[in-house]
Structure formats: C-alpha cells, structure tokens
C-alpha cells in the first residue's frame, strides 16, 4: 500500500503508541493493565507499521529471527525469576517470603519481582503478536 497520508500518520503516531504500551507494562503493579495489555498495545503498533509500509520494510526493521529470540527470551526470563524463589528457599515465584525488595506501595520501585515479571510477559506477548501477523500475511 503506497499512500503518503497513511505513511506519514503512521510515522508520527507509532512512537506514541509504543510509549503508551511501555507505560502500561512498567506500571503493571500500581495501575490497571499489566504485561498482557501493554504487550498487546506494543504488538498492535508494529502491526500498524507493517500494514502501512509493507512486509519487507517491517522485516527489515524487526527480523523474524529477532522476534523468535525475544519470544523465547521472555519466557526463559520468567522461568528463571520463578526458580529464583526456589533457590532462595521458598516456593516457585515466591516474592515477599524470600526477602525481595518491597519498597513503598504505590511507587515504581516496589512489589519485589512483579515489575520484572510484567516486563517479561510484555516482551513475550508483543513478539508473539508480531510473529503471528507476519507469518499469516507473508506470501508463500
């Protein structure tokens, strides 16, 4: 699709969508939203880019190999954080019992490992959405 208006609007609006998605992911433990919602918003921004610029430009920006690595890396990060609880003498994904940093409720740096887990889920969901869309629309 070669439309100047669509391309210009996409180029202007995609950074704001991505900043909003990152905001939702990073505030997952103190406001509505979290890893799944923020990851979906991030993936949708990349889908918008693919629709207006075409698949070749999008795969140049974000190759299939990179999304595969991100997808596997997100879930491995999640599992490692969960196993950290067992390593420190608690259950899988145990948080306060094994002494992670709790902080003041309502601030960004609080709630132990929940922000790190939310980031892992966000990366996983975003790369899965992008991989699905690129796989469906690619010509065979």
């Amino acid at each position, binding site marked *: 699709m070669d439309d100047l208006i669509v391309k210009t609007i996409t180029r202007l609006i995609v950074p704001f969508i991505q900043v909003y998605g990152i905001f939702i992911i990073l505030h997952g433990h103190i406001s509505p939203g*979290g890893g*799944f919602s923020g990851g979906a918003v991030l993936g*949708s921004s990349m889908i918008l880019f693919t*629709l207006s610029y075409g698949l070749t430009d999008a795969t140049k920006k974000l190759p299939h190999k990179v999304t595969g690595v991100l997808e596997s890396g997100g879930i491995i990060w999640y599992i490692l954080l969960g196993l950290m609880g067992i390593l420190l003498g608690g259950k899988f994904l145990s948080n306060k019992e094994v002494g992670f940093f709790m902080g003041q409720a309502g601030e960004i740096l609080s709630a132990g490992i929940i922000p790190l887990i939310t980031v892992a889920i966000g990366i996983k969901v975003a790369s899965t959405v992008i991989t699905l869309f690129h796989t469906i629309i690619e010509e065979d």
Partner: protein
Amino acid sequence: MELLNVILVVFLIVCAIAVERTKDLLGAVIIFAAYSLTMAVLWLMLKAPDIALTEAAIGAGATTILFVAVISRTRRMEK
C-alpha cells in the same frame, strides 16, 4: 448512566445478531469491531479497566486485522 447502559447493551445485541446475518464477510468483520468497542466501554462501566484496555487492543485492533488478512486470502462473500 442507566440509560447509557441500556442503549449500549441493546446496540451490543443488535451487533451480535447482525454479524450472524450478514452475507458480506468484510462487513461482518467491521460490525464485529464495533461489537468489541462497545464491549470495551461496557467493561469500563463494570469497573474492569484492565479488561477494557485488553479488549480495545485485541478485540478491536488485532482480531479485526487478522480477519481482514484472512479474507484477503480467501473470498469475500459467503456462499
């Protein structure tokens, strides 16, 4: 607030019936996007803003685009 709720629910039911009865598949997908957007507003009124956020991004955004991609691969009209 009560009146808005009734209007939205009636619109939701009309959309759900129209999706099933439309022969044009592209039109049905667009009606389904309207259904998802109405559902997102209803989730917000039911005090579930996180579900509303997900519904607006997945239901009205990603699902519609995936359906349009599938229709462009197959035919547009229902047999």
